[in-house]
């Protein structure tokens, strides 16, 4: 039996004048899983997120969120959906608690449950101590946590996280990962867009790799790695002329390669002998670069 889908996109197309931001995208997010939407900047991830809240209206294709058809039934879908945007849009002159109070109203939480909902969100984001602080007095990491707490105030069945850790320093990023992981273990369905490979590899059950508005691959990270990059990658270092040579020879031998600035990575070299280099396990980044043809930031 097919798993229930929280999000289902079929052939979604979104054009802005001459630019096609989303170009026939298929996307499945099964209930209870965390799906990573991975792609370089400009691949159409943010537009996809906007399509899911009907803030962008698709030109073609079908979009269903929590069983509701968009854009017609988007308001119903949004009632059960939490969204943490990439750009901070908190009310900066209000306190942490006031921000949550406003969204408790916007998400139609009943009068008697409002207090509990706010307390739960404060605890979840570890902001209990800062409840009376104005948002413009918070650190970047705290603001990001508040943004997620705000998205969770109504205990949504599905959460959209748009680049949840972009611009955060590594320590704060790990705090965010812990928070997302906790959410995941509680069974909340998550769609998370990111251009950080490590983030997707750590948190996502399945990954959809986007390039130029299309899904170019989808599956669990380990399967994608196995399928596209094999088990081992051979990293060959040397001067540029040597690298070009290695590239040519490897390709002649039917192997796929990618340049990584200082080296050539030869993919899927399991059992292959011929070059001197460092063997390492293949990773999602290899797949990503192979499929999108782009390095990531």
């Amino acid at each position, binding site marked *: 039996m097919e798993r*229930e*889908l*929280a999000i*289902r996109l079929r052939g979604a197309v979104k054009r*802005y004048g001459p630019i096609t931001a989303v170009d026939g995208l298929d996307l499945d997010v099964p*209930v209870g899983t965390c799906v990573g939407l991975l792609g370089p900047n400009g691949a159409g991830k943010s537009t996809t997120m*906007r399509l899911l*809240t*009907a*803030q*962008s*209206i698709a030109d073609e294709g079908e979009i*269903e969120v*929590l*069983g*509701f058809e968009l854009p017609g*039934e988007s*308001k*119903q*879908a*949004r*009632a*059960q*959906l939490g*969204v943490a*945007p990439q*750009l*901070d*849009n*908190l*009310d*900066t*002159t*209000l306190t942490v608690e*006031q921000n949550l*109070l*406003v*969204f408790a*109203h*916007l*998400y*139609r939480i009943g009068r008697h449950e409002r207090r509990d909902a706010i307390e739960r969100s404060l605890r979840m984001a570890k902001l209990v101590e800062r409840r009376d602080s104005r948002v413009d007095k918070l650190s970047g990491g705290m603001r990001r946590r508040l943004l997620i707490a*705000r998205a969770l105030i109504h205990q949504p069945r599905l959460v959209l996280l748009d680049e949840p850790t972009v611009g955060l320093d590594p320590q704060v990023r790990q705090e965010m990962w812990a928070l997302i992981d906790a959410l995941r273990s509680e069974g909340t369905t998550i769609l998370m867009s990111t251009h950080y490979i490590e983030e997707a590899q750590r948190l996502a059950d399945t990954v959809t790799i986007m390039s130029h508005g299309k899904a170019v691959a989808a599956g669990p990270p380990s399967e994608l790695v196995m399928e596209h990059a094999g088990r081992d990658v051979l990293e060959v270092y040397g001067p540029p002329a040597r690298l070009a040579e290695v590239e040519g020879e490897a390709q002649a031998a039917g192997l796929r390669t990618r340049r990584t600035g200082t080296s050539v990575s030869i993919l899927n070299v399991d059992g292959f002998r011929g070059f001197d280099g460092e063997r390492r396990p293949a990773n999602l980044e290899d797949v990503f670069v192979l499929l999108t043809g782009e390095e990531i930031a």
Partner: protein
Amino acid sequence: MATATRAPRIGRLDRPALTGVLVREVVNYSSYWRSSTFSSTVEPTIYLLAFGFGFGSIVSTIGGIDYVEFVGTGTVATAVLFSSAFPGMFGTFVKYQFQRTYDAILAAPVDTEELVSAEAIWIATRAGVYGCVPMVVAIFFGLDPAWGMLAVPLIAWIAGFGWACFGISVAGFSKSFENFNYVVSAVLTPLFLLAGSFFPLDEFPGWAQALAKLNPLYHLVQAVRDAVIYGWDWSADLVHIGVLVVFGLVMWRIAIYAMTRKLID
């Protein structure tokens, strides 16, 4: 496919959505009410005093009433305009362009129609209150209190709703802040002077008087003067109030159209 939890279908313009947006405004107001109240009340009061003392020393009566009564009721329109059109324009622009507040609200179960309506209701309510300030100040300078004054907040609310929607529409259609200058210079300033707030329009050329009849501010001034000083003249005042209601309804739909274009792509 996930079985949608068939909650009762959420309709258009439903109360929880409007309340949610209004709660946000009220909570925010607690952090800026001082400056907002200051500018919305002090400015018209300055006009009232400046014209009252300036003109009042030359002309003692206009149309059979003291000049302070004339200008005290006339500047209600000024106060309404300042406290509705300007927040409509600048507040809206700041909220979608810089604070991205509307992106956050529209990700919740709120539609643009509800967002715009709630914002306009909120601005109109403030305009209804702030609009009374010049009238109250004028009482201290000789305007006689009257029962009709109790109708002024309501009249000011209706006009404020229309001007709030006007401001929101301008913000919705403008690509940048700078465009607001055109609107202020070419639309608001002439209408503000052609409202009969500070001087009667009887001596104006016919075309200007005809133009004034299309000016919602003119009808606001007339309705307020009738309520406070002259007493209701039903046939004339139905027209005045009618114009304000129609102005409000038309601007409301235009504001929703403009903001939908802006916010939903």
